């Protein structure tokens, strides 16, 4: 299977994991999408370095785009193949679904996160 097909499959598999297997339903949560919006920016930067410097090279037969990294276009986003967005989304969603699943099962549900240090001294909101 091409990287393109596998990337689509991975997104579907991650969605099924979140919605049907672990039943975490993160894709229905604001907390997930805001986190993902932040994560994807840094993903594009780090992945842009790895593909732009050509630490990783892609076989043009396996991707939509060409073998030549460019900032945008020809199947590339921030130098990386557009397929990497699916790969990264699946990696993040599967991880966070697992994280929430085990917390919900009672594994280190606490200590919960926060409050941030800059709110020290102010009453809880």
């Amino acid at each position, binding site marked *: 299977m091409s990287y393109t097909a596998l990337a689509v499959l991975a997104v579907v598999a991650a969605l099924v994991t979140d919605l049907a297997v672990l039943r975490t*339903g993160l894709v229905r*949560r604001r907390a997930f999408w805001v986190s993902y919006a932040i*994560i994807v920016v840094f993903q594009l930067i*780090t992945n842009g370095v790895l593909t732009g410097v050509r630490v*990783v090279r892609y076989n043009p037969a396996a991707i939509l785009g060409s073998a030549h990294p460019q900032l945008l276009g020809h199947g590339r986003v921030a130098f990386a193949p557009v397929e990497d967005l699916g790969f990264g989304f699946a990696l*993040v969603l599967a991880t966070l679904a697992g994280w929430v699943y085990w917390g*919900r099962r009672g594994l280190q549900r606490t200590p919960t996160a926060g409050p941030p240090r800059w709110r020290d001294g102010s009453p809880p909101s």
Partner: protein
Amino acid sequence: MSHLVYLAVLAACLVGTAWLEVVVRTRVYRRWRRLVVAIGPVLVVFVVWDLYAIHRGQWTFDSRYTTGLLLPGRLPVEEVAFFVVVPLCAVLAFEAVRAVRGWPAGDEPAPDPAADPASEWHGEGGPR
């Protein structure tokens, strides 16, 4: 030094997110056992995918920018580290957003029955 490029990118991810644990109090490293079981299966699946892609020649790693330490299947050790570092950073970002905004994700502790029921409980039925 160029052999450390890939590792340096991963190190930058760890360094760049470390402040979240301290300043935002994400408490992700403190919950390392939960982290291990969350990342473990994802790591296995993505390493298998990686091995398939390497075997099929879908992507290759430039030996100038990697340490050259290869695991069975010609898998660079950096790739395994990638599948630990990226999920770890994702959980840090997720918990940081929750720490700042207080949005629920479905794993919140049950409300303390001694506390005022009208207080800040944001679990099921609360805002999504």
